[in-house]
């Protein structure tokens, strides 16, 4: 009998703006 596929886990993503903020702060932290 065909097995029902396991439900996939939703990966939470930051918004594009949040991603940019994180990226900017990382760049500022690095020398």
């Amino acid at each position: 009998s065909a097995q029902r596929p396991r439900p996939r886990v939703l990966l939470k993503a930051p918004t594009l703006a949040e991603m940019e903020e994180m990226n900017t702060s990382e760049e500022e932290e690095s020398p």
Partner: protein
Amino acid sequence: RQVTVQRKEKDFQGMLEYHKDDEALLIRNLVTDLKPQMLSGTVPCLPAYILYMCIRHADYVNDDLKVHSLLTSTINGVKKVLKKHNDDFEMTTFWLSNTCRLLHCLKQYSGDEGFMTQNSAKQNEHCLKNFDLTEYRQVLSDLSIQIYQQLIKIAEGVLQPMIVSAMLENESIQGLSGVKPTGYRKRSSSMADGDNSYCLEAIIRQMNSFHTVMCDQGLDPEIIQQVFKQLFYMINAVTLNNLLLRKEVCSWSTGMQLRYNISQLEEWLRGRNLHQSGAVQTMEPLIQAAQLLQLKKKTPEDAEAICSLCNSLSTQQIVKILNLYTPLNEFEERVTVAFIRTIQAQLQERNDPQQLLLDFKHTFPVLFPFNPSSLTMDSIHIPACLNLEFLNEV
């Protein structure tokens, strides 16, 4: 750590494995340092397929942190490259095309049946097993909108300086120069810094160039259509605004030249199979303005014909063109005040917008319709020039 590439092609399941420490190198070689020319002759949107195959392996081994990290680095890498090349039409097209393709892949292989209707059995085997990337699809969609806006800005910046001289000032119809109203002077040729005039052919050459780049980079046809609809709207708005402000171009002969130029642009759209894009419809106000310059403007019947024809021009715009209309010679009469009053009376029930000029910066909302690919992941070859030997085919 062993970095030998394993090539077991018959067993290749369309996944690419890499060590976490190589993620930065992957993004550098595949995104930030990549030149679109390096990929000429390969399948369009190769970086998007490679990235999907990497995501798929991270999904396959149930490594959510690796998926998060790769998608975040990819998105930041694309943003960085776009910032660096913010006036490069080809580079911007390349990343719009790839970002949309990655978005299409995340839908096509999501496991959501609504996106799987055109998949082959083999493609269905290449769906994600563990993770739902719906939220990342939203981020990629937002990024695609940003890239599209950058692309339009670049194209508009190239075309805008050509529009007035090509559409209103250049005379390509033989013999028309003899029937210009007195006092007509080309503005662009009177500029101190040399001859800035362009002919319509220059606009068409430039649009050919844009179109070729977008097709070569595998940009979705629906997006190409939207780019040209937007560019044609700007040509319409800039030309009409100039016409509404310059007495010497409001003449029968400019109307004739303008109608000819618009027909050349329509012909170009047909030749490039873009006539269904809605681009011609955005030119309707300008088409009507050209006709208005050529119509008779004397009797009540003429007034009625103008009112029924010019339904894409506002009352204010029609009246302004009639007021500015300049007779060609002493045999042609000016438009009378009585005629303009008749027009105003006939149009008073219209609920027209109050502003005279068009907003030439207006942008139509962009849509990215789902466009699944018939390619299967296991058929994709990674060229050596990408320096991605550290990716293992699984």
